[in-house]
């Protein structure tokens, strides 16, 4: 791990990113805006799946389709800005236990979000009829949201955890 951190921080890409004055807060801003895309889109899908949304003008399939794209665009932006931040300051992230927890949580959150997508695709037609499928989709919807919140918690705590 230490060797990786040292090698990464000594690459010319890493020093180039660090040397651009004020780039790191810009990358973090992009990261936060991409979180906004993911979290709010998932919130809208969840509210529709949980039938909280008052207007039933939009079917669950339509709502999922409308917001799903933004989740995937957001995740790509998050991965790109996140990877750039890691390359710039590998010692801040890679050996940090909050960062390591975050990676595990991302895997869980992404898998749950993908499972929700499959569930919504499969059940779009008979959603109102099948109670079991509805319950599964609701459970996935809530779990995915909680998991992404947990990712955000672990992410912010990187700044407060001393690398080991």
């Amino acid at each position: 791990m230490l060797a990786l951190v040292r090698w990464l921080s000594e690459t010319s890409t890493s020093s180039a990113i660090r040397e651009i004055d004020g780039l790191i807060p810009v990358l973090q801003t992009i990261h936060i805006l991409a979180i906004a895309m993911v979290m709010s889109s998932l919130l809208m899908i969840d509210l529709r799946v949980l039938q909280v949304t008052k207007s039933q003008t939009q079917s669950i399939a339509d709502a999922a389709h409308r917001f799903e794209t933004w989740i995937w665009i957001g995740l790509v932006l998050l991965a790109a800005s996140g990877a750039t931040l890691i390359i710039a300051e590998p010692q801040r992230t890679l050996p940090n236990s909050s960062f390591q927890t975050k990676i595990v949580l991302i895997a869980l959150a992404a898998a749950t979000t993908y499972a929700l997508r499959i569930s919504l695709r499969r059940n779009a037609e008979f959603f109102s009829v099948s109670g079991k499928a509805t319950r599964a989709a609701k459970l996935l919807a809530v779990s995915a949201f909680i998991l992404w919140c947990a990712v955000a918690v672990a992410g912010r705590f990187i700044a407060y955890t001393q690398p080991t």
Partner: protein
Amino acid sequence: MDYVNALLESLEHSALAVSIAESKWAFPIIETIHVIVLTLMIGTVLIMDLRLLGLASAKQRYTVLQRDVLPWTWWAFGVAVISGCLMFITQATEYYENEAFRIKLFLLLLAGINMLVFELIIARRAADWDQESSVPWLGKVAALLSIALWISIVFFGRRVGFTMLLGRN
């Protein structure tokens, strides 16, 4: 200005501020809540802005979308304000002196004015363009301003963490 300083100092020395500042995890937890609610707040604002620009949710009626989305914006905004104030009081004097923080507050004021103008002038006649995929040009201007302002607010918010003496970045 003595008033301001006296007020800031009394905030900083209040029991609440002292207990947040002395606790190891209170500030990080409040800051994390701030980040989560602000992402929800800005994301839901963007949903409305993109609808106004006719770029997304174009088939949804504006008034219907507004009823589904805006209550969450306001809840998230309320929690963001409370968590923001709790962070502010821990180092009130320094935040007050911080340039990025001042710019952020000014931009928040502009975003508020933009929203008020939109609500009072454009949204009041929403019935006229409710079903249209895009709205009167003034509404589009308000949407573009809103997008630009909120992105800048996030940026200057993040800058605060980098420019404070005890900054957490």
